[in-house]
């Protein structure tokens, strides 16, 4: 077993009386390939948002690589190596593809405060951005503004942006949402090929993809961890099949 | 783009240059002409009235007025306009100025370029000291306020509340009134400085009611403020309870009195000019003014312009067509004029104007609300900055 990277203790989020995330305690080891599944409204995106810092937690703790990040703002978590992508594509429409990946690289390298140094001389960062774009097969589109990019490519760019932070844990919120299933397999190939130094926790509805790419699966129900186990354990569990898979969770 | 801009500016230059010839006597008039301010037009009409009475040629030189719009108290705009008038339009004299900051900015240009300057309004005490080629044909707020305080004390009001606009002239008048009034044995029952954006005076009126004062002195020269305050004062029935309202005359300019009703009759004010002033000079002036302005009533600002023109003509005549800055100021500081406002002279030390201040009562005369003079304080000096 690899050492623990992320650990949550009794994490909860309440919206009024609704407990969207209820007492969730999970651990994710380094290099993990975890999937987070559950029916609509189970609290998957809420949990990811809490881990990334987009939402504050009502109670509980988040420890990442030995550091308490429970109340750290988003950009501090990114700096510690905890990055995410979004279910609904969320990019910078007026920047070019390369610029926004380079931007994330600048931030990771702590160069974002350099306000008098011309960035076009920072070739190392731009080269790294190009490499990342090659990795997600966007090398040819590097100089286009993002606003005009087809949707599938924007999903890939989301991942490149997440990777640019060189995260130790990358949270992928439905990375394949909104693209045809043939392409989503390709997308997951790209994800699967990412270096082992990056742990991954992804939300996904397509069970074929989940079972193909996840080493371990966490099932969330009504905001609580219903079960956690390897794909075969999950597939073999009768109650998961009944409650979740039986409902035909594809949407 | 730059090129087309240049053509535009050059065109403007050509257009203004065509009008003037080399031996003309050019006046650069800086005043607010746009927006809600009427001072520029009042000055312009005052000058036109002077032309009508005395012609637009002096000592053989035709007099040309070049107007420039300085709508707000912005010194940078005034300095730029003054500089361009002096170096480009080659004006012989600078004039105008409703606001003190614009007068100061142009005063610096006057000093640097040795161009004489005649202030037609800008009423802050002591601004002439730094500008050796400048004279003022208007008044200072302290000068018009102080006699009113003495009159109030003399006429049985022992307790007075002051309400002024919260800006430099307002504070000048508050200080002048309180100093004179307390010196004459009066008691202040309170004072309020009203923000310039105030439009609703109800709260202030209630405060005045609470103070159980015998009288109120007000200086709120912005037309909306003047009108709203007077209306609120009357609406609250303060006058019926015996509270007397006295104001600095700027609050009862013709454009403001035109918006008042009969219940404003009886308000006492003090100033150096009323359109109703009984003299030959004034009757001629009023008639000329009405004929050039589409039957408008002259104001203290138009009288300032009229007298400034008079001072200019006298100086040019005395120098046989020339306008030397040192000599002109020498002439002005020793000058005595019979103005539409009454006799005017100048303090040889400070160059500031010395004039009669009149106590007036608002009455309906020939169907128009008019400030009727009934008492005169002779030859009042400015004692604002002592």
């Amino acid at each position, binding site marked *: 077993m690899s050492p623990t990277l992320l650990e949550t203790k009794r994490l909860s989020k309440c919206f009024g009386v609704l407990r969207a995330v209820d007492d969730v305690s999970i651990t994710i080891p380094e290099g993990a390939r975890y999937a987070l599944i559950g029916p609509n409204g189970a609290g998957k995106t809420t949990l990811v948002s809490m881990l990334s810092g987009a939402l504050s937690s009502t109670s509980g703790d988040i420890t990442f690589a030995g550091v308490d990040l429970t109340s750290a703002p988003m950009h501090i978590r990114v700096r510690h190596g905890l990055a995410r992508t979004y279910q609904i594509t969320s990019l910078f429409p007026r920047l070019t593809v390369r610029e926004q990946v380079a931007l994330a690289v600048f931030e990771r390298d702590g160069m974002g405060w350099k306000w008098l140094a011309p960035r076009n001389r920072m070739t190392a960062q731009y080269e790294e951005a190009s490499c990342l774009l090659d990795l997600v097969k966007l090398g040819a589109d590097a100089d286009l503004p993002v606003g005009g990019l087809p949707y599938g490519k924007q999903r890939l760019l989301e991942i490149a942006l997440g990777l640019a932070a060189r995260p130790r844990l990358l949270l992928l919120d439905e990375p394949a949402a909104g693209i045809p299933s043939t392409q989503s397999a390709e997308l997951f190939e790209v994800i699967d090929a990412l270096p082992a130094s990056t742990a991954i926790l992804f939300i996904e509805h397509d069970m074929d993809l989940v079972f193909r790419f996840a080493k371990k699966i966490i099932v969330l129900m009504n905001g609580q961890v219903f079960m956690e186990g390897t794909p075969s354990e999950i597939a073999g569990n009768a109650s998961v099949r009944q409650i979740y898979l039986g409902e035909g969770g594809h949407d | 783009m730059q090129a087309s*801009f240049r053509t535009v500016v050059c065109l403007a230059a050509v257009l203004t240059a065509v009008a003037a010839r080399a031996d003309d006597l050019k006046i650069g008039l800086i005043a607010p002409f746009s927006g809600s301010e009427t001072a520029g037009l009042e000055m312009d009409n005052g000058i036109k009235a002077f032309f009508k009475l005395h012609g637009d040629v002096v000592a053989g030189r035709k007099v040309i007025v070049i107007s420039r719009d300085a709508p707000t108290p912005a010194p940078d705009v005034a300095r730029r306009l003054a500089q361009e008038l002096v170096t*480009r339009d080659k004006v012989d004299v600078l004039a105008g100025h409703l606001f*003190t900051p614009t007068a100061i900015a142009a005063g610096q240009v006057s000093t640097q370029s040795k161009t004489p300057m005649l202030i037609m309004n800008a009423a802050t005490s002591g601004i002439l000291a730094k500008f050796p080629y400048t004279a003022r044909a208007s008044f200072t707020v302290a000068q018009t306020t102080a006699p009113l305080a003495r009159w109030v004390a003399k006429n049985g009001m022992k307790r007075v509340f002051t309400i002024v606009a919260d800006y430099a002239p307002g504070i000048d008048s508050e200080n002048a009134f309180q100093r004179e009034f307390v010196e004459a044995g009066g008691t202040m029952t309170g004072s309020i400085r009203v923000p310039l954006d105030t439009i609703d005076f109800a709260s202030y009126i209630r405060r005045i009611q609470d103070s159980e004062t015998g009288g109120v002195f007000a200086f709120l020269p912005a037309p909306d403020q003047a009108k709203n305050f007077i209306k609120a004062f009357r609406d609250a029935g303060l006058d019926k309870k015996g509270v007397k309202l006295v104001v600095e005359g700027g609050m009862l300019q013709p454009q403001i009195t035109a918006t008042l009703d009969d219940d404003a009759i009886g308000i006492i004010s003090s100033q150096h000019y009323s359109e109703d002033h009984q003299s030959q000079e004034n009757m001629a002036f009023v008639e000329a003014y009405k004929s050039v302005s589409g039957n408008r009533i002259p104001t203290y600002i138009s009288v300032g312009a009229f007298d400034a023109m008079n001072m200019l003509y006298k100086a040019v005549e005395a120098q046989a067509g020339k306008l030397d800055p040192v000599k002109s100021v020498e002439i002005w500081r020793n000058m005595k004029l019979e103005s539409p406002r009454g006799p005017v002279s100048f303090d040889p030390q400070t160059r500031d104007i010395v004039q009669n201040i009149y106590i007036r009562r608002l009455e309906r005369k020939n169907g128009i609300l008019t400030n009727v003079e009934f008492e005169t304080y002779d030859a009042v000096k400015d004692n604002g900055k002592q």
Partner: protein
Amino acid sequence: MTRRLAAAACILAPLCYAIALPDYLVFGSQILVMALLAISLDLLVGYAGIATLGHAAFFGAGAYVAGLLSVHGWGEPLTGVLVAACAAGALGIPIGLLTARSGTLARLMITLGIAVLLYETANRAAGITGGADGLQGMEVWPLLGVFDFDLAGKIGFAYAWCTFVLGFILARFVVKSPFGLSLEAIRDNPLRAAGIGIPVKGRLTAAFVISAAIAGAAGAVLAQTTQVVALNVLSVQLSADVLVILIFGGIGRIYGGLIGAALYMGAHHWMSGLSPVYWQFWLGLVLIACAFLAPSGIMGLMAPRAGGRDT
């Protein structure tokens, strides 16, 4: 390459102006001051996506600081500009922090409110600022100890031009830095910007500080060349004017500030010379026409920008 040419043109165009219109140097230096103010505003509006109606607060703070320094015995202009820029920049910190999380409308009104409060403070503190009568008695020493500010405004123009060039180059460096890129990212999508590790609040506050410092320097130059400071440097009118100038010229392009200031002020000067009473009418028509014919400003006509509509 073309960008460098454009930048060089921007820097040199004022010199052509000075040669072509030697009688209008004071006007020219005021155009340069407004251009610099508009460029500083462009950093906020065009790059960081912060609309503000209170930019005069920084300009006025700079003007009053420079003015007060010279009234109280330190008339050296260059250090005056530096101190003024620092003071205005410091003012940028609280304003930046207060508005970092607000939406557009709230931001407009908060900045406007703060500017009005500052205006009222300057009006009330008449003992220090001269109030509505203006700050009098400025003694500005010769530039570099040698060049006295002359009537025709030659030295003033050269001075304003140097400040403008420095400010312009500084702003250009800022937008071409990683920092500038992060501002554009925040403008496009603040939430996502935080998601890739950008400290949004800190960056926006820093943008305020830089922009405020440049605006303060512009105010100081105006104060020193005019040698009187009055409340108009803090007015809502000025805040609105500079925003209009910037939109007129074109936002998010740095050059827009200069083009906008030159054309807008040129048009204003020309129209108010021809018709001192009704120039507002014609200027208003120009603005309306610009909104329909050149919605991205004059610069937008000359060099359409990649990436779709401005927000």
